[in-house]
């Protein structure tokens, strides 16, 4: 169907890089999400303030600008400040790290909200019951809170993943060799932009559809033991 003029392998390499940067960003987003939701639900006003600031700022700024800030802005800023104090430091963020940090940081804010909702939807009576049975805090978190929260959080986290994997296309702008950038190279060299951008869009669509299938399987699994309504 497509005449790839020898650029097929390049696109496949890009697809793997997209998956790699997507998965590592998702891992970071999950960690930040757990941390953020814990801060939001804590009684410590400073933690709450920081978590609110985090989600407010991330929601208000386009991904592209945040990415450019993380890749160019922040290292230059830190180096300038260090230079003012007479230190010469190098912050060498390669595109993979900058992309992972930026995307993970952005979607950490969205997973914070997902986890917060999930923890809040667990009836407080359950924790009280666990306490009454003599469970410690960490045990009741592991046995009671987390399994149920995961069930409530799964649909939301699935959505975060599906938006995140598409957002990795932006990392091409800071020259990470992922699918979008490889596609650009092929499109510009062959002067056949439609062929390559359309093919790449189908590859992204494939990732989305596979993710949707996995998500519905995962939800079935997480809901086992819960009666159908």
């Amino acid at each position, binding site marked *: 169907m497509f005449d790839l003029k*020898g*650029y097929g*392998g*390049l696109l496949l*390499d890009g697809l793997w890089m997209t998956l790699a940067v997507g998965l590592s960003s998702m891992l970071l987003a999950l960690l930040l999400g757990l941390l953020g939701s814990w801060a939001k639900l804590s009684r410590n006003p400073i933690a709450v303030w920081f978590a609110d600031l985090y989600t407010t700022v991330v929601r208000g700024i386009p991904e592209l600008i945040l990415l*450019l800030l993380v890749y*160019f802005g922040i*290292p*230059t800023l830190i*180096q300038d400040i260090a230079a003012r104090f007479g230190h*010469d430091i*190098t*912050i*060498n*963020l*390669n595109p993979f790290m900058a992309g992972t940090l930026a995307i993970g940081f952005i979607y950490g804010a969205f997973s914070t909200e997902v986890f917060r909702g999930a923890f809040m939807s667990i009836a407080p009576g359950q924790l009280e019951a666990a306490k009454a049975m003599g469970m410690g805090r960490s045990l009741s978190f592991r046995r009671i809170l987390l399994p149920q929260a995961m069930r409530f959080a799964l649909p939301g986290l699935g959505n975060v993943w599906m938006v995140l994997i598409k957002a990795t296309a932006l990392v091409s*702008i*800071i*020259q990470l*060799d992922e699918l979008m950038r*490889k596609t650009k*190279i092929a*499109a*510009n*060299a062959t*002067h056949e*932009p439609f062929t390559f951008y359309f093919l790449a869009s189908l590859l992204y669509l494939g990732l989305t559809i596979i993710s949707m299938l996995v998500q519905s399987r995962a939800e079935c699994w997480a809901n086992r033991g819960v009666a159908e309504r």
Partner: protein
Amino acid sequence: MKKNRLHILLFTLLLSFSGLLQAESIKIRMGTEGAYPPFNLIDKEGKLGGFDVEIGKALCEAMQADCEWVTSGWDGIIPALLAKKFDTIIASMSITEERKKQVAFTDKYYTTPVRFARPKGMPIEITDEGLKDKIVGVQSSTVAENFLRGRFGEIVEVKAYGTQDEANLDMLSGRVDLLLADSFVLGEFLNSKDGQSIEFVGPAFTDKKYLGDGIGIAVRKEDSALLEKLNAAIKQIREDGTYARINAKYFDFDVFGE
């Protein structure tokens, strides 16, 4: 007081340690764009190549340095150098006064004029009247853009692209009436299969005010030792014939200029 002394001790320790590391061998990260054929490009296997890259590799050999190559978008290539993503820019960058405020340049390693190109047979003349209201595609933040805006900015509509390749694509689709770019880069495009419908028009411009003093390698201003090494290496490859060999691979004339 005691605490302060400890700090100083630690700091000197750190300094001497980093000094030790540097003494081992020079490691240089070479920055380029990778979207500017024939000077720098990425091939089907995803490998970097082109005149700039081969010259860069020859320079590394002459300096006996251990080089690593990093690519960057053209728009962000100077900010990336300043942010220490890499140590040199060897990407067909013209030596201009404006850029000298930010970075330091080596001596030139080649010279290039800029030229216009138009679709074959399109009656556009390169005069103030002929260019009136024409849309001209250039790569943004290049000397071609500066020259176009400075010399014809009031007359034409400037359309600036992130890469030269994208400007070329829009020439083929007819979104721009003319291209203005480095004459060698345009020549490469005109020689390609799709470029057959495009032709050069008008003179080769060498206006120093906008186009600067040839093409050099940029380094951060504080890296004067690296600058000297690079200059010595350029001289060396000019003298030992390495430059001529690479030149012959890409062009059938001396690209160095006088």
